[in-house]
């Protein structure tokens, strides 16, 4: 590289790496935290909208103690309750229950990568239960009053996924439906043979991408999953398609009476909780931004101040050999911009990586990097660096060259 002002700045920065890194730490971490929060909340916002559309069910029966911060992960690894509750609901003949789908979900490892195995009970089997038959519902078309109507097309569309979330008509014991990210990760197609926990299954449906944790799910028969996981007769949730007018007439209360130790909520409530969380996160991000601007500019300013102080003699020498004050000014200004740039880019990378890697675990969301945040990160970081540095730079450009007289 040809020697230039830029060489001087870079060489000096690199030479005293340690102090520079600690000076940058606050900006980098701050930007990283904000980028991570933004990445998660923006995806989460989109997903909430999408999931409202995808959901067939509108009531969730969860075990007591399950968290409902995120509907899509509410059932994963939650405690369980007896599958027999399904029959209780059926025999109770509570009006307004149109249909339901019991599920058992657990995180498992396949070839070292984490997937969610979800057992679902096909509608046929629900309907064939003697009690169900006795209730006289058999034969009657199960038209859903509130949820979108069932889709009978054979091609795989989002409607199929709706069908999965709503209810699956029939499901063989050796058959699985896989989410899009599973299909991609394990490179499977319809007809592929797929082993889970030592048992082989045939992939019969590939579900379209949704951007939710559903993409990471494998759907199999509830009873098969129960056996595989060794928790027979238990489910982690029941999704119920209830009729809207009955819900407002106290359907939830009636369900609570017959299903002890469960938490019964409407999807609307859960989604609201999540929107609430999103709004809170946005506020947290704003408060953080203010703190970061203050702390970041203070720590950069502190570093630049120390840097100018220890280079007083060097600056005096440069002025003595004919550098103008504007050269000194420019050198420190460019240094501050470079530090801001580094902090912004680094912060963006750290924050985005954190969101992409941890998102699926912490928020149940598949998060894609947002390039736009890079420009914002750089802009904010450079502004912070300049805000913190202007006074040290001002001082640097005013150093009295007579300082070179002083020994050492």
């Amino acid at each position: 590289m040809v020697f230039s002002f830029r060489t001087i700045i870079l060489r000096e920065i690199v030479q005293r790496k340690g102090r520079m890194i600690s000076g940058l730490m606050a900006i980098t971490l701050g930007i990283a935290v904000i980028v991570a929060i933004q990445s998660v909340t923006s995806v989460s916002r989109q997903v909430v909208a999408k999931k409202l559309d995808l959901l067939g069910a509108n009531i969730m029966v969860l075990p007591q103690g399950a968290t409902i911060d995120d509907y899509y992960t509410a059932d994963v690894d939650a405690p369980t309750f007896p599958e027999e509750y399904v029959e209780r609901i059926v025999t109770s003949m509570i009006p307004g229950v149109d249909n339901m789908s019991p599920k058992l979900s657990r995180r498992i490892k396949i070839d070292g990568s984490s997937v969610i195995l979800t057992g679902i009970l096909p509608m046929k089997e629900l309907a064939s239960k003697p009690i169900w038959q006795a209730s006289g519902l058999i034969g009657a078309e199960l038209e859903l009053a509130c949820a979108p109507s069932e889709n009978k097309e054979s091609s795989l569309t989002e409607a199929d996924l709706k069908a999965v979330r709503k209810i699956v008509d029939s499901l063989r014991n050796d058959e699985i439906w896989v989410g899009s990210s599973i299909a991609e990760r394990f490179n499977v197609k319809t007809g592929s043979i797929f082993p889970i926990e030592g048992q082989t299954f045939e992939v019969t449906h590939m579900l379209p991408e949704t951007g939710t944790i559903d993409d990471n799910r494998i759907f199999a028969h509830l009873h098969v999953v129960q056996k595989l996981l060794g928790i027979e007769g238990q489910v982690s949730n029941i999704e119920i398609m209830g009729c809207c007018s009955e819900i407002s007439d106290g359907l939830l209360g009636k369900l609570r009476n017959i299903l002890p130790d469960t938490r019964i909520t409407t999807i609307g409530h859960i989604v609201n909780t999540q929107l609430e969380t999103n709004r809170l996160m946005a506020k947290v991000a704003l408060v953080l931004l203010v703190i970061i601007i203050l702390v970041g500019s203070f720590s950069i300013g502190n570093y630049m101040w120390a840097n100018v102080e220890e280079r007083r003699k060097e600056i005096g020498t440069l002025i003595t050999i004919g550098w103008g004050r504007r050269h000194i000014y420019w050198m420190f200004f460019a240094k501050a911009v470079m530090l801001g740039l580094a902090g912004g880019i680094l912060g963006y990378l750290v924050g985005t990586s954190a969101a992409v890697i941890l998102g699926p675990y912490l928020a149940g969301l598949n998060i894609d990097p947002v390039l736009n945040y890079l420009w914002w990160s750089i802009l904010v970081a450079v502004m912070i660096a300049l805000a913190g540095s202007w006074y040290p730079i001002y001082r640097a450009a005013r150093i009295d060259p007579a300082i070179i007289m002083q020994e050492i």
Partner: protein
Amino acid sequence: MIDIRKLTKTYTRSQQQVHALYDVSIKIEAGSFAAVTGPSGSGKTTLLLSLGGLIQPSKGAVNFNGQNLYSLSPSQLASFRNRTIGFVLQTFNLVPYLTAVENVMLPMLPLGGNGADLKKQAVNLLDRLGLSDRKDFFPRELSIGQQQRVAIARALANEPDVILADEPTGNLDPALAEEILDVLEDLNKNRSKTVILVTHSPQASARAGIVLKLREGMLVS
């Protein structure tokens, strides 16, 4: 020609006035070799820095070829220092994180120009001072004498007419001091540079054509 007229520099410390220089008038012809001597605190460095446009005098003027330095704007003054003056200091003041050749290039940067050409010039200067095999060394990797020669090369970077040296041999052993004095004398004799040398050493002032003696800020001879 350097024409110093009634130069006075007064510092005020705790309501007491110190005349670092008092009513000093000298004319130094272009191409001369002048030594400035005097006891510690007599104003030698103050005089040298005033000549280099680094200290605003309290009274009087410094004229370089008829131009009063202190009527120049700060950026004109910087440019004057850059092109016309080469400073050599007692403590060398090399930039520690730059190599020898990069240190020599420092005064060239404000003038701009092709980086490769500048580098060639800098290498030539180091050559002249016998440092061609040390050009990529950092100051800490050089001996004291070599460091001072790099500092001289840096002072010569823009081919200045005047070399101002403030006790350049003060930190060197006698043999090295002689070596540096040889270099300065050569610059004066063979390159017709005006050399103004602040020194305590009689050997050094013996080489000079003019010896200016200062005492308590005043010129005594």
